């Protein structure tokens, strides 16, 4: 029975993919050309050295949640310790093995996978929006181009699972997709309450929790403390404590009080997010809950506000903004007003990338860039901060203006 179901699902997927490719042949050829040009010449050096080390260690069967001190390279990978949930690990180890076998640079293999997931996201977007224009809007968006095929972040996989979860919102399968996205990266965690409160049933919650626990269990059994430190404590920024600690620092509080304050901040964030999710549920129930557009509207708003609770402001870097961009593109199919947030999100992410991420992480590897890169790291920091803050404000304004306009029109 299960075998037949899997076979049907796979056949359906391949047929859908074939149809998608034949329908968007020109766009995809252009996308492949862009990938062929951009993938080999750019990668995020520090991050990709880390991915490489971790991919190598995983393929050697080592527990990457323990600091292994593999070698003293002056980069993030210097201890070989992974700082996220485990679902990206098979992708890195697969990329490591393939790159060794076919003698291609690791980042090229890894980013080709990212590009493929990008195409899958575009395919799902088209299915959900029932509009073919979303494909180009997504694939050729500068923000998506830099965060995926240039920087090579795998956040796009988290987004893919979130999209699938949204598509099957009231079904148990959404629990599986949310479970998978939560096992990828902590950025998906603030979105969990949204799906939980819209699926208040034991079966959904059990399914979700079982998947998450099953994914983490082998690593927790190997070294519980190391996993907790690497996934939760080390990456506090991913769950939101760290940006708030800047405020705590300004308040000149020291000693154990800081830890208590951090716990208070984290608890407050959790409470606010749950309250937000409950409010969204109430709003959705009072409106037409079968209206998919309404769900996406509320999801986007939930994403925006919850990420603001968690990060103080949504970090204006491409791989964070892409979480907001995807539902924005979906909504553009029904509400043309969402073109404003689309434009401001893209530009904000792109500017901050070129001024901060691109410079700081040495994305391009040419001598001509060496000067501006290092100049950028230290001397543009304040400028990047000011520009990023101003653009973020414009971005927020564009979102709330759009929501105001759309909802006002709906009530008329």
């Amino acid at each position, binding site marked *: 029975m299960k075998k037949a179901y899997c076979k049907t699902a796979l056949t359906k997927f391949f047929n859908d993919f074939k149809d998608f490719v034949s329908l968007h042949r020109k766009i995809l050829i252009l996308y492949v050309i862009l990938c062929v040009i951009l993938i080999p010449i750019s990668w995020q050096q520090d991050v990709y050295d880390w991915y490489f080390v971790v991919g190598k260690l995983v393929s050697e069967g080592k527990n990457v949640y323990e600091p292994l*001190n593999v070698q*003293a390279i002056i980069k993030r990978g210097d201890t070989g310790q992974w700082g996220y949930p485990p679902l990206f690990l098979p992708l890195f180890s697969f990329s490591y093995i393939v790159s060794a076998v076919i003698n291609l640079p690791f980042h090229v293999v890894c980013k080709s996978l990212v590009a493929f997931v990008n195409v899958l996201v575009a395919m799902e977007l088209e299915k959900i929006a029932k509009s073919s224009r979303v494909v180009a809007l997504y694939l050729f968006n500068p923000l998506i181009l830099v965060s995926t095929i240039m920087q090579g972040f795998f956040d796009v996989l988290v987004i893919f699972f979130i999209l699938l979860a949204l598509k099957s919102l009231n079904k148990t399968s959404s629990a599986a997709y949310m479970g998978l996205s939560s096992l990828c990266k902590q950025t998906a965690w603030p979105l969990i309450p949204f799906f939980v409160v819209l699926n208040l049933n034991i079966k959904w919650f059990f399914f979700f929790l079982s998947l998450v626990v099953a994914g983490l269990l082998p690593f927790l059994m190997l070294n519980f403390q190391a996993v907790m430190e690497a996934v939760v404590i080390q990456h506090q920024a991913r769950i939101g404590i760290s940006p708030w600690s800047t405020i705590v620092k300004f308040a000149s509080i020291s000693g154990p009080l800081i830890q208590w304050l951090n716990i208070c901040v984290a608890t407050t964030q959790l409470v606010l997010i749950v309250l937000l999710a409950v409010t969204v549920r109430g709003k959705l129930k009072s409106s037409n809950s079968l209206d998919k557009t309404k769900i996406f509207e509320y999801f986007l708003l939930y994403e925006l506000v919850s990420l603001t609770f968690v990060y103080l402001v949504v970090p204006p870097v491409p791989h964070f903004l892409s979480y907001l961009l995807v539902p924005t593109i979906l909504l553009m199919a029904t509400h043309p007003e969402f073109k404003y947030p689309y434009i401001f999100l893209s*530009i904000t992410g792109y500017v901050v990338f070129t001024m901060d991420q691109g410079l700081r992480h040495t994305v391009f590897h040419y001598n001509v860039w060496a000067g501006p890169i290092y100049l950028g790291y230290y001397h543009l920091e304040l400028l990047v901060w000011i520009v990023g803050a101003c653009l973020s404000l414009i971005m927020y304004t564009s979102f709330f203006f759009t929501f105001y306009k759309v909802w006002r029109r709906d009530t008329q």
Partner: protein
Amino acid sequence: MKDKMPLVSVILIAIILSLSELYVFLGLPIHVVRNGSFDEGLNYWNAEMIEGEELVNVSLGDGSNQHPSENFHCPLTLSRINMTWPPHNYIWVKMYQLLPEHTLVESSALKFRMMITKTDFERLSSESDAMMIYVGFMISRGLEKKFLVYAWVLFETRLTRITVDTFNELAFWRIVRLEKSEQRLSENFEITSTTSIWKDLEHQEDWVDGDWKIGHERAEGIEVGIMLWNVETPDFSWRLNVYLDHLDITYYWLDNLMP
């Protein structure tokens, strides 16, 4: 076409921004080179943290504000480094000084002497995996720049090995010499070294003879740095004081100054 307007406008804005940013960046005079780390206008030793953020303080003792003398003899004492719960497992402190313009000649030499007390050395080696001290010279020939590094590895572990490849990613770096100490912990740690820079450079595989210069106008000079790997952080109040006594660098660029 109307459907494609948002995408077209976003792509156009991105292209215009890229071009204008590129124009601005490339048009700016590049005074600062990270990892070569010299700053125009500074003619005294300056301390800088690369990794470890503001939690690590460096204060310079005697000799900290000495202007480079005419004979290029610059004694320096790095008196103290305080470290409180470094957020990184890699710490890099360095000091640098601009120098008057001078051409690298055959007699150019480096004399380096440094001592760490036994107590500090014991603690450093027990609380971190590896430690290195280096002296670097930023030199240039036309538009080409190189940062020549003499490095001494004080200690390392089997898993944290410091090699020339460790510094592959650092811009302009050229490790001229990497010496590893085998000194035991039973006494104060000392390094005394005198070497001919010219001869060391001649041994480099791809070295090109030419008019290599250090020059204040091009923001070039000498740098002393300390790197610590994988510092253990037992608790939030962890603190480490390092006292480097008698850190003394003398370097010569003229024939008649060679001892």
